[in-house]
């Protein structure tokens, strides 16, 4: 067995260089996925790179352009920030659903995304909010919409020497809000069986002028479902519109059956979640 190496670089450049030097590196942010996978023998990296000493990864700023969230900022820091919760209540709730309080102390939105699990709770909420990934690597910097970041279960678009630096959320338009719901068999400590995030913008008459709907745990990656959004835009978000969005989400889902739920069950429930999340987002937007 190759002995494991550990590094804790303090700059992006150093990190890219260290990552590029290994043929089997893994980035360590909160470790709440990686260390479990290593424990269970699912991953055996040769090098673990702790990125939490890199300032850009731990920064959080909220300004007129929106939210800029360092990829390794712990969940508990985000969920404890009232300003973020006001603008993106659904995203903050989604992040807060990841694991236990203990996991919240470590897990990060960037880690949740880079683990590339189709069931990651915060990812549909990032997609619904049109968040963009800022990526830095040996060959420079690039931006990728969150919905394009993951390419399959456990797979994403990062090259070996690339690091997800931040997630950038555009500032929502007035009378815009979001919601995220997931289904788990217990109330806590489970992986989502299905998840749904909805972001909505209303005009003064209560008509939905823009919408983004994303679903999780029902396809190889979290999906943006434009058909579901289309069912909402231009409506008063009445029961029929919500039902149409739910049906569109169920239709877009292509889940598997596994120990957490059957494919039929997931298809059904993801529609229910989209409907309920849209109703919550509507109420939140209307309250602004």
């Amino acid at each position, binding site marked *: *067995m190759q002995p494991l190496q550990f590094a804790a670089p303090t700059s992006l450049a150093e990190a890219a260089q260290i990552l590029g030097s290994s043929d089997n590196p893994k980035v360590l942010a909160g470790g709440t996925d990686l260390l479990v996978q290593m424990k*269970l023998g699912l991953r055996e990296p040769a090098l673990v790179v702790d990125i939490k000493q890199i300032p850009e990864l731990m920064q959080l700023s909220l300004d007129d352009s929106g939210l800029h969230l360092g990829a390794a900022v712990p969940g508990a820091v985000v969920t404890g920030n009232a300003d973020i919760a006001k603008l993106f209540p659904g995203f903050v709730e989604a992040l807060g659903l990841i694991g236990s309080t203990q996991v919240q102390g470590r897990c990060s939105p960037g880690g949740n995304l880079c683990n590339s699990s189709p069931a990651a709770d915060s990812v549909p909420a990032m997609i619904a909010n049109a968040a963009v990934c800022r990526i830095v690597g040996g060959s420079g910097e690039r931006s990728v919409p969150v919905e394009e970041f993951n390419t399959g279960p456990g797979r994403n678009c990062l090259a070996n020497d690339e690091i997800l630096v931040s997630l950038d959320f555009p500032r929502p338009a007035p009378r815009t809000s979001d919601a995220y719901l997931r*289904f788990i*068999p*217990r*109330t*806590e*400590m*489970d*992986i989502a*069986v299905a998840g749904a995030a909805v972001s909505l913008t209303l005009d003064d008459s209560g008509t939905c002028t823009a919408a983004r709907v994303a679903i999780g745990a029902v396809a190889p990656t979290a999906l943006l479902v434009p058909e579901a959004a289309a069912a909402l835009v231009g409506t008063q978000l009445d029961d029929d519109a919500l039902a149409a969005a739910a049906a569109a989400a169920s239709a877009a889902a292509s889940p598997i059956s596994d*120990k*957490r*739920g*059957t494919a*039929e*069950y997931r298809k*059904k*429930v993801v529609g*229910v979640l989209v409907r309920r999340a849209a109703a919550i987002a509507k109420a939140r937007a209307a309250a602004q």
Partner: protein
Amino acid sequence: MTSDMKVKTKFRHVGTSPIRPDGLDKVTGRAKYGADLNLQGQVYGHIVRSPHAHARIKSIDFSEALKLPGVLATMSAEDLPEPGEALIPGAEIEMKLKNVSPVIMARDKVLYHSQAVAAIAATTPRIAAEAAKLVKVEYEVLPHVLDMHAAMAEDAPLLHEDNFTVGVDPAPEKPSNIAQHIVMPKGDVEAGFAEADLIIERTVHVPMCHQAYIEPHACVAKSDENGKIDLWCTTQGPFMVRLLTAEITGIPQKDIKVTASEIGGGFGGKTTVYIEPVAVVLAKKAGRPVKIVMSREEVFRASGPVSDAETRVKIGAKKDGTLTAIKSEMLMDTGAYSASAMFAGVLFGTAPYKCDNILSVGSEILTNKPRVWAYRAPGAPQALTAVECVINELAWELGIDPVDFRLQNAVEKDDIPLYGMPFQAVGLKECLQAVKDHPNYQAKLGENQGRGVACAFWINAGMQSSASIHVTPDGGLSVMTGSPDIGGSRASMALMAAEVLGVPFETVRPAVVDTESIGYCDGTGGSRTTLATGGAVIQAAEKLVEELRKRAAASWQVEIEDVVWMDGKAVERCGVGIDELIEGSSPVKDGAKVLTLAELAAAAGHTGGPLTAVASLHAHNAAPAFAVNVCDVEVDPETGKVDVLRFTCAQDAGKAIHPAYVEGQMQGGAVQGIGWALNEEYLFDDQGVLDNAGFLDYRIPVASDLPMIDTIIIEVPNEMHPYGVRGVGEVPICPPMPAVVCAVNQAAGTRLYDLPMSPPKLLAAIDGEA
């Protein structure tokens, strides 16, 4: 043998809930559990496990593993004596060594995935794990069978070529996967069904689950130059560990000392051994202390889970609610070796009810899954769940309140259950009445909400225990037993000793000591510790009182009859009756001599030497326990999600020595049952590999899943026990499953009896797809 014992009813300490004596160490992290001991020079054991559910072991090659620096010893079944047909002497129930030894180390064949086949000792855990990967085991893979029905098929793969079903007449000529069969008749069920106005028949499936104690199995074994073994481990029964380790390794019991660590939960799961004999053999071979700690994954895959069972129950009742006949046919999965609690299921499933006509049948089935083991009231929850679900449906159909229906049919004193032993005073009706009177039973149910009621029974054990009491020169008391404290039993022991001796609770220091420091004690299990080990403590304390009276009499140069022990002091009677003095109806005479415990202890050297008392007993005075649960749930009809809204437990404790810990047993059992009903199950893939071997997907209830669990302790004294104690630890897990199932079915309008009622299954039932 009739009991003419007077049950004590007035207590000074018993019935209070003081802080447990071991509590400080447990809230500060000082208490030492199984994995908390590290010995000088210690090395680490790692077990090599089968990747197949059924295979012949052709060869085991350690040569590559031994090349790894740091590897000190290896072992396989070759290092253990051939078990043959020998029975394990002195085991709680009849056990064949050949059904126990291969669970420690497989011999010839592996019968389930992750069965132990070899082990390594090395200087670090990492090296041991690496070396384990280098052990080459050559297997001939055999077809496997996981499902009980498939295992009973003519052409099913045979687990044991020498298994001829026990209990059928004539004895079968062909081997099969049916280990045992039992038929228990009473009256005439067909005649009973003919009398019935309503008959309901249902098949209820209860899944394989796990005790899911939070502390994994762990031990440290040391072997000295004379071959004496010192074994530290987490267990419910150190004497059981001594016995099984001796039988499995061939080392005599007299050479094995077992010290039980603090134990992080057991629930029956730690009433056997998995790693202890391996650590002992490795320690002998390596010449170094060997520590083995099972991973959580290993605990799920390779310890003893709990039988899944399929029970077909048919019950007949008259319009007025009288039960006329009960027929129960149970299939119980025992995994790879016969060890299930099928008999208890067959015998006890109908115990709460008066019914003249009962037929209860059971078969124990072998499958390529881990060998099952005990879990709180082993066998009873599966059987009672099936019966209670049908009883509830009968009540609904007959339009009778489910509690009233049960009150009408509940057993009482002198009724004879299927297992034949007439009941003495039992508190089932009292429990039923108590839940009926509880405000929770009056709470209004809303939309999508339902309420379930269930009764339960467990027989409770007595068995063997020892206790000894030493007195310090200043009058302190150390009370020693061999019963590991799994849920506050030190507090109960101290309460009972304080009660007899009339001293403050804090004066008593209870201890759990190793197998060489106390007489034999059966394990902490079977709801027996407070009754039996407590009984030994009471006896030892009574002997000590006798001795103290004797010492006082000697000091005063009076007869022992002239000394009464009251309020922790020897008091001269001066002609007043003992009872009058103790009850306080006559005052102590002026000028009567008095010696306190501390004074007697200080003088002990002059009056006959140290003050000690020892008692050992085989308790025959166990009495059964009944319990009743009421559960309210709300079902989300669009997702199949169940929320438990209210939960009420009533249980007959006989006498609650430490009421807070009795409530704790009730609440803990309730929540385990809720988990088993809703989400807990073993999920195997088609290769027999457990798919949810971790707490992420083996979903035990978490704090946010639950409401407060309301408890009502009923005290109908056990007439055979001096304080009226019954066992309390096991029966709490019996009623919650059926209570939850019935509540959910009422709320959802379903008749789902395939547990767990996980959301996908329940939603399919709601949508009419099941």
